[in-house]
């Protein structure tokens, strides 16, 4: 389905009867060159780049529910490249550059808004740490600015600057960061993949792998067997459950993360702000709702919902940073299940099973990665070599001791 100004006028005059679904709803073929498991942001982006950039059109995406109904439809939509380590930061900066051209690339309005992210600084030690991070960002080709107190006051005069325990001393600002419309990102990639010939197959759960002599031949699904030259798995919070069907145990625990949105308010917060003394971040959607979140739930869960202790913690952090939000009413909260790795960083790699590839371990930060994850996973699937910005994101890095541990927290997922 394509759009044009002419089409909009024509449909308006003819009762909007000519609009068609954005993509086809095909039945699975007996076999494909490449099968992607998971129709979330990463799976759809992978299929999009495989067909459009790497010229591999005989691709199918198998999704157990509907397209974009997983974490891509549940996140708080923050896009940024303010990581520290050399194994991560070039990847996220590559992703941010793709975000900047994404709407032109797939010709769909993803409401990408580079409204900036400000990480607040509350102590001298934190300023040193953020200065180091800012320099790492600059070295990777990203933008970063260290703001003093006056500059932060100028941007957001309503913050709680003189909180006795957590006074605000400054901030690290990335102006090119921002937010995007999460659903539209999934839809844009889906439409672009469909137009290029990819079969997007919904209500099709992968229930097993057919593996012969250590090589994957295809997948068993609720809609029958589908043969495949290669299989790429991108199922986010379900990573371990799907990969155990191929006999793999992974350095991953599934945990819940909640998010919250308030009633619609007049424009007040025009960027993304993160609290530096606890886990809290906030932005305002174009509809006016304050969108905010905080810590993960800390325990293994597949329940797709969180518990009240984290709700309380998030609200307390919010009130400590921005007391003015105390009068806003929370409209909704929800949760998603994330694949937390043992070092807090993702995996894009081959697996010990020939022809089976893994894209997972995105923890709570995989939305910003969507375009680059799709691009680099497509690169790996198409060329059998890792893209230069993902060479550190190996599955065997835990065994070899080459972790990408941004926080230096060690092998405990709930600390990342």
């Amino acid at each position, binding site marked *: 389905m394509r759009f044009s100004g002419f089409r909009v006028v024509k449909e308006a005059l003819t009762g909007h009867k000519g609009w068609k679904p954005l993509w086809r709803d095909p039945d699975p073929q007996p076999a494909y060159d490449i099968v992607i498991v998971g129709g979330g942001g990463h799976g759809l982006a992978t299929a999009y780049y495989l067909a459009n950039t790497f010229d591999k059109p005989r691709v199918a995406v198998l999704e157990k529910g509907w397209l974009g109904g997983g974490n891509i439809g549940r996140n708080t939509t923050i896009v940024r490249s303010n990581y520290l380590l050399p194994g991560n930061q070039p990847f996220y900066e590559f992703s941010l550059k793709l975000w900047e051209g994404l709407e032109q690339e797939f010709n769909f309005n993803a409401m990408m808004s580079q409204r900036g992210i400000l990480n607040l600084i509350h102590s001298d030690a934190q300023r040193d740490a953020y200065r180091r991070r800012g320099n790492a960002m600059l070295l990777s080709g990203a933008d970063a600015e260290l703001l003093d107190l006056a500059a932060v006051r100028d941007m957001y005069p309503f913050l709680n600057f003189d909180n006795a325990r957590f006074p605000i001393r400054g901030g690290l600002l990335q102006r090119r960061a921002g937010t995007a419309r999460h659903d539209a990102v999934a839809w844009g990639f889906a439409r672009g993949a469909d137009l290029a010939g990819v079969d997007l197959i919904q209500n099709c759960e992968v229930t097993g792998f057919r593996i012969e002599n250590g090589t994957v031949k295809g997948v068993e699904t609720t809609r029958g067997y589908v043969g495949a030259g290669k299989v790429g798995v991108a199922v986010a919070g379900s990573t371990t459950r799907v990969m155990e069907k191929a006999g793999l145990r992974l350095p991953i625990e599934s945990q819940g993360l909640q998010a919250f949105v308030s009633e619609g308010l007049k424009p007040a917060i025009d960027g993304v702000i993160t609290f530096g003394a606890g886990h809290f971040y906030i932005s305002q959607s174009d509809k006016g709702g304050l969108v905010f979140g905080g810590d993960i739930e800390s325990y*293994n*869960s597949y329940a797709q919902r969180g518990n009240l202790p984290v709700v309380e913690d998030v609200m307390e952090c919010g009130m400590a940073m921005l007391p003015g939000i105390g009068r806003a009413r929370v409209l909704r909260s929800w949760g998603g299940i994330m694949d937390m790795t043992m070092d807090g960083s993702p995996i894009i790699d081959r697996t010990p099973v020939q022809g089976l590839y893994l894209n997972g371990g995105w923890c709570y930060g995989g939305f910003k990665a969507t375009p680059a994850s799709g691009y680099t996973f497509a690169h790996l699937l198409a060329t059998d070599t890792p893209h230069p910005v993902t060479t550190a994101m190996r599955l065997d890095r835990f065994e070899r001791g080459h972790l990408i541990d941004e926080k230096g927290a060690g092998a405990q997922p709930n600390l990342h």
Partner: protein
Amino acid sequence: MIIPHPLLGPRDSQEFTIMGDAKLLARPDGLADGAEAAFFDYLYLRDNPAGLHRELWYHEQGDRSWLVVTRDTLTHEILGAELASDVARRLAEGAA
């Protein structure tokens, strides 16, 4: 979530911190053959089940005991809790 502490009775899980899979009680022997592979498995790999999970909780704001809690990861229902020291002792006796 309410954790049935074996000594203190029902306690709010907010008083606890969680460390993860209770398999961490079974630390491999560092001098045995294949210790390197055993430690990789011990430190990094997890079953991550959808269903019953035995996990280590620490009563940080209580009596500072470690518990092994059995919990359903699909529903968050807690089915039981025992002192980790008891579980560790049973493990050691089983191994001896």
